[in-house]
């Protein structure tokens, strides 16, 4: 049963096709990318449908790779992977749709794009720590080129900042990883990088106390954890729109996933030692991101900082060590992936590509609600969804995190509530200033005649509708995701209770 593995192979195959087809026009490249992503996404959906959440880990492939260090090519999935596979499937397809207008070096663009997605699928399926790390790095490199070549505002700066932050994070995590290998070798007598086996090793408290923060923060860099978040807003702004969508949508989730699997999963005692500190950082991130988003003039920065705020919920959920918090964190990863993707799509593709400005004072004069009503209403819906309006995915996720946090650290739960409130304020501010600041129909029509904007295209509409539908489906029937996520979380907590003496 190797269907899930094809989610990794297909994007790389697609990349090869693009690289080996020099005559491909932009149109061909787009089609290859779309077909590849649809196939990979289809494979992801099918494998999630076939996966039985009560069965625990489902093996996919297991081959020896570097036996001297116990490193294997080992893919497997559980409920948490399943949730994130779904996210990647949706986000990657929609990302291609929103890349439809890329004309500059299209072939190369999509080749990088596919490589990145292949890496992302790989991370979510890796059961071997070393393999996870390899895929993690594979996903980072194309990101640099995508931003540096196709980006906008200060793109070299943004790209370099992002890559440096990623690599510093990786380096920190790498140290932790080597320590895990060495320590595990000493404890058990055989080298292993298998996450399942590592989780069962009774690590000493002293070891956990220093290696847990190393690993957690190392991966936390990419998850936009405060105060290591600074790459996120700049990177998002510099990136071309579809890449911002992927950055917020799936790349930040890689960090959170690493922190969950390696940090929380292996070192329950370490989490207990550090959970207060990390929760404090998470709450700071939630409040800080929201406050800074409140005074931005650049529309994309608003969304960029809101991402920091929303990812704070994920970090907070991860360290609660209970099923509500962890389950909520995973669903929040999904929810934020979908909604941030949508918000960036509206701001970057629908608005910026047409108006060529993202400054709110300029947008105020453009009467976008009349000129681009589809964009306006999509943004309103995405905005209310991301501020946690019930009925959309964000509400369920944030509520689960809050319930989890309430039993772990009630005071932080209250501070988080304030963060949600500021979230309402910056969203409404952005909605109003960007779309609904106008002086009536006549003026709007005059402006529209002066600067006609091209209408919203079908790929954009389809992409937006798919994302909104995904968020609504999860919001109305959260069981769709929780039926996978919660058994996964329970399985993890069970192993942690046995291995680490939680």
């Amino acid at each position: 049963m190797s269907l899930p593995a094809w989610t990794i192979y297909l994007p790389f195959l697609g990349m090869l096709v693009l690289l080996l087809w020099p005559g491909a026009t932009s149109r061909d490249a787009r089609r290859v990318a779309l077909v590849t992503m649809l196939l990979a996404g289809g494979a992801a959906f099918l494998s999630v449908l076939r996966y039985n959440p009560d069965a625990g880990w489902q093996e996919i492939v297991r081959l020896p790779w570097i036996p001297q260090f116990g490193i294997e090519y080992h893919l497997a999935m559980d409920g948490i992977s399943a949730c994130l596979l779904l996210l990647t499937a949706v986000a990657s397809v929609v990302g291609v749709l929103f890349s439809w207008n890329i004309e500059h070096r299209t072939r190369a663009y999509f080749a990088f794009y596919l490589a990145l997605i292949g890496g992302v699928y790989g991370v979510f399926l890796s059961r071997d720590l070393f393999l996870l790390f390899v895929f993690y790095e594979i996903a980072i490199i194309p990101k640099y080129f995508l931003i540096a070549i196709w980006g906008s505002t200060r793109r070299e700066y943004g790209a370099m900042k992002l890559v440096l932050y990623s690599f510093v994070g990786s380096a920190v995590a790498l140290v932790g990883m080597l320590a895990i290998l060495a320590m595990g070798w000493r404890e058990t007598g055989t080298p292993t990088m298998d996450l399942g086996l590592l989780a069962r090793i009774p690590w000493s408290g002293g070891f956990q106390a220093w290696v847990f923060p190393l690993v957690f923060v190392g991966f936390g860099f990419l998850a936009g954890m405060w105060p290591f978040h600074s790459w996120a807003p700049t990177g998002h702004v510099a990136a071309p729109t579809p890449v911002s969508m992927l950055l917020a949508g799936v790349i930040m989730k890689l960090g959170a996933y690493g922190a969950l699997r390696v940090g929380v999963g292996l070192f329950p005692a370490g989490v207990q030692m550090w959970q207060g500190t990390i929760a404090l950082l998470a709450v700071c991130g939630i409040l800080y991101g929201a406050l800074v988003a409140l005074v931005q003039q650049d529309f994309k920065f608003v969304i960029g900082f809101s991402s920091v705020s929303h990812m704070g919920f994920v970090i907070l959920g991860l360290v609660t060590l209970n099923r509500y918090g962890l389950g909520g964190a995973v669903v929040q990863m999904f929810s934020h992936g979908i909604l941030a993707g949508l918000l960036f799509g509206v701001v970057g593709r629908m608005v910026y590509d047409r108006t060529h400005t993202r400054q709110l004072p300029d947008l105020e004069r453009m009467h976008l609600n009349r000129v681009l009503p589809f964009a306006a209403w999509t943004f309103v819906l995405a905005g209310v969804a991301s501020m946690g309006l019930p009925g959309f995915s964000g509400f369920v996720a944030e509520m689960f995190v809050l319930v989890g946090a309430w039993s772990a650290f009630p005071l932080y739960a209250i501070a988080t509530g304030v963060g949600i409130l500021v979230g309402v304020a910056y969203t409404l501010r952005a909605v109003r200033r960007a779309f609904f600041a106008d002086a009536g129909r006549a003026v709007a029509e005059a402006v529209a005649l002066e600067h006609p904007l091209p209408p919203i295209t079908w790929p954009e509409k389809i992409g937006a509708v798919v994302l909104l539908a995904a968020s609504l489906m999860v919001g109305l029937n959260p069981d769709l995701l929780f039926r996978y996520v919660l058994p996964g979380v329970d399985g993890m907590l069970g192993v942690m209770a046995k291995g680490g003496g939680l």
Partner: protein
Amino acid sequence: MIEKLASLLVLVPVLPLLAAAAIAVTKRPHRQRASTLAIGAMGLSCLIAVSAFLAIAGAPEERLVRNFDWLHIGNTTIQLGWMLDPLSAAMAAMVSFVGLLIFIFSKGYMAHDENYTRFFGFLALFGAAMLGLVIANSLLLLFICWELVGLASYLLIGFWFHKPEAAAAAKKAFITTRVGDMGLLLGMVWLHAATGTLTFYTEGGEGCLQAGALDSLGAAGLTARLIAPATLIALLLFCGAAGKSGQVPLHVWLPDAMEGPTPVSALIHAATMVAAGVFLMARVFPLLEVGAAMHGESHSVVTPALTVITWVGAFTALFAAFIAVAQNDIKRILAYSTVSQLGYMFLGLGAGGVAVGMFHLLTHAFFKALLFLGAGSVIHGCHEEQDIRYMGGVRRWMPVTFATYAVGMMALSGVPLFFSGFWSKDEILHAAHGWPVSHIPFLMGSLGAVLTAFYMTRQVCYVFFGPQRSREGADHGKAAHPHESPRVMTMPLVILATFAVGLGIFGTPAWPWAQSFLEGEHAHLAFGHLFSGEVLAVMGTSLVCVAFGIGAGWWFYGRQPISSAARPDALEERFTPVFVALKNRLYVDELYEATVIRFNALAARFFDVVDRWILGGAVAVIGYLVVGFAWIGRFLEDHGVNAGFDLGCRGIRRGAGAGAALQDGRVHNYLRALGIGFATLLLLMTWGCH
């Protein structure tokens, strides 16, 4: 039959929701289709809700719940569901019926608006969410609908978003109510943590409002010798209720919300949504009662939570009534009046229990919707004029509106015997009178009743009597004088007026059918109750209050027709002259009158100032503080975090530059370095050999 209706009850919110979805995909020019969909869906909902109401009216002790699993968490599940009990049935019937009438009214009122289709879409969305809220059998579902009505309210207040005031009011409303909602959310999370469920009632008795859960909530506090968790949860939930229902200090958004179209004010900001807070408190009343100390013969239960609710309600009732006296915008007067009446409801709920508060909620919904629609009709007829100083004499041109408005005004003022407002307000005053903690809320309530009668009389005199006073420079041409509204607008007025009168029959002390129904009991006819000493005394007090209020109003505003809009308000005018007369002639009556008036006017101004400057200022200061922190954050971001990062990069670049300078590609330089290195090595080695 009743079982079947209970199952069908889910259609009550679902039908408007489907209509909203259908309207959302309807193109703007299909105006007729949009309004027909919304009105049709609401009509069907109303039919079902009224049938359910009639069914349960015969068996008020019933509570039929329909729960379904929403989410499985291992072996526990989160359930959502709806229920048919007297409270939900009465609310569903009221909301769908008043909603239907207002939808019909809107068809006339919004006939010329360019976004007619969107308006009905939002209205239907609101109807769906509000009806979902009232039949919810789970705090979670209630909260979901609660937020959705908030969203619909935001969209509708800001419906004319091209007016900056409307856009600002929409934002203010949403954010202010969200402040309260955070309390509600936290209370909900706490309740879930403490009882493990958010379902109100289940057939097995495991709901969070049933004995088992409540006992554990009350007991936990007794052992810890602290405030019981039930009290704190109840107070957190009350934060949400206070925000939604405009209680001091979270009332600031409600008067501003009048920037929305008038039918919206009638539906959302008078009859239904703002009453949701009172409804929520009524719904979770068992939680508020936890740990109650019973006080002998008076039937009041007293708990810390209920005491807080009573005081907040009483204060708001009086505070808002004072402000209403000094307003000139027809809708703002009604808005402050709504805040005041919501205060009465909380007062009644806190002092007298569910039935007292809820009965006033129901009667108020009808007569306040009537007043707002009447105001809408006047505004429509007077060519969008909202300032009562520029109206006058409208009675002559708008007889139907005048008659129905008068009914509404008398119901709100509490004119005895024939108007529902009298009976429901009397119940509240009665409950406040018997409240064992303090008598002050009763006095506040009575004074509020005087003011209510006073400001309503003032408003009616200004609008409907005297000569016409149109704005100077206004168009004196053909359409100068007001015109009566079309039938589609007056019909709902007449129906609402009928109910504003008729509902009172169901809540007299002799036959307290509505109260018994809401408490799940059968009513008994007993005329004796009407004449018991305390009942008569309270009725007498409220009679005197109303008579005094209306009399004073008439004295100042009705006796002499108000001739010109520029003339200052009678209260304002009378300050100094009456004061001087008092000094010179020393008439005791006039002295008394003048001090009362002076105090009244001063208090009105004072509260207005408090409202505008202190509370508004506090909100603004908090806003500035938040923005200030945000700027500091941004400054740190730009100059701290980023600067550090840039500095690090520069260091690396310089280091790299220095390294690169060594590799300059000139062979003789390399040779030179090689030579020096070789010599050094030789020297070191020879030295090392020694």
